[in-house]
């Protein structure tokens, strides 16, 4: 009976001893793939246009570790990206948030450009449609180009002789 109690006590102590290990394992369980899933949307602060997940610099290694720490703390991908934007500027994100200058340059301007293009294209089409019937119809011959029948007759004869 005493042996059974002792056995249970040992098991309990072992389980209690494992608790901090389990907590530590939870923190350290963030894989490189999980880190890189966030890091690929952040640009290196040192190299031009290089995503964080493939950059070999120490600065990027530090930033990846920061992402790992924040994931381990339970922060979401959006929260981490928001932190990076606040701390290092919107320019470090591959998909900058729609606000300020980036809202105008990256979102409103292209939409405005497309609308402008459509407007110009529709005007061009309308102009072509108008011009087509006018070009197809024969020009009405003036009854009297000069207003003087005798002069008209003379000009007609001269033109006829030239043609011959």
């Amino acid at each position, binding site marked *: 009976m005493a042996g059974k109690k002792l056995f249970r006590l040992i098991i309990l102590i072992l389980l209690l001893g494992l608790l901090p290990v389990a907590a530590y394992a939870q923190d350290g369980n963030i894989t490189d793939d999980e880190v890189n899933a966030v890091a690929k949307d952040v640009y290196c*602060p*040192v190299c031009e246009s290089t995503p964080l997940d493939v950059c070999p*610099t*120490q*600065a990027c*290694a*530090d*930033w990846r*570790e*920061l992402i790992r720490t924040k994931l381990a703390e339970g922060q979401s991908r959006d929260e981490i990206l928001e932190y990076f934007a*606040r*701390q*290092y*500027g919107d*320019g*470090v994100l591959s998909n900058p948030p729609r606000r300020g200058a980036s809202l*105008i*340059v990256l979102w409103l*301007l292209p939409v*405005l*450009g497309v*609308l*402008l293009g459509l*407007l*110009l294209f529709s*005007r061009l089409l309308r102009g072509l449609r108008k011009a087509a019937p006018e070009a197809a119809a024969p020009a009405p011959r003036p009854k009297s*180009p*000069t*207003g*003087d029948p005798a*002069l008209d007759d003379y000009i007609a004869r001269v033109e006829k002789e030239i043609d011959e």
Partner: protein
Amino acid sequence: MAETIQDTTTTPAEDKPRRPFRWSMIALWAAVITILAVLAWGLINTNASRPEVGQSAPTFDVEFFDGYEWDTRPVANLEDMRGHPVVLNFWASWCVECRYETDVLEQAWLKYREDGVVFLGVAYADVEPNSIAYMKDFGVTFPHAPDLGTDISQDYEITGVPETFFIDKDGVIRHVQIGAVDQEMLDTLIPQMLAD
């Protein structure tokens, strides 16, 4: 004859009927002007040159690291430092070359702080715990702040770290050092700024 020709000729105004007022034309021109204005703004910003020697130093706000404040202020503006020569140093804990100058800067700070010279370290694109660990490792005591949003480094158009701007009492840039500073440079430039 002349009268006949005049009779059959019409003025251009009579040939072309007046066009009706169109909102689409206004919208078209407004869009063209807007796009050109935004493109011009972008072009101007892209070509904005870095502040040169002899020009006024761009002003900025800083929020100091805890324990690394200037004049016991947790936040400050460059304008607040007017009347003091300022040594503005951009650095990062991941920067190898910065390690060669950190101790030199600290020694100069200890030497010239009583003369009113402000040393301000700005941690560029650095992770805050790493910045603080670096400062503790090197026993740094002069004011330091993170470059939040990289606003300061963008205004100064730095090419990398370390980079140091020497700003005189009137807020004019007197020297720009790309790369690490050394003791001789500091002992030459700082007394010059103090003397003016």
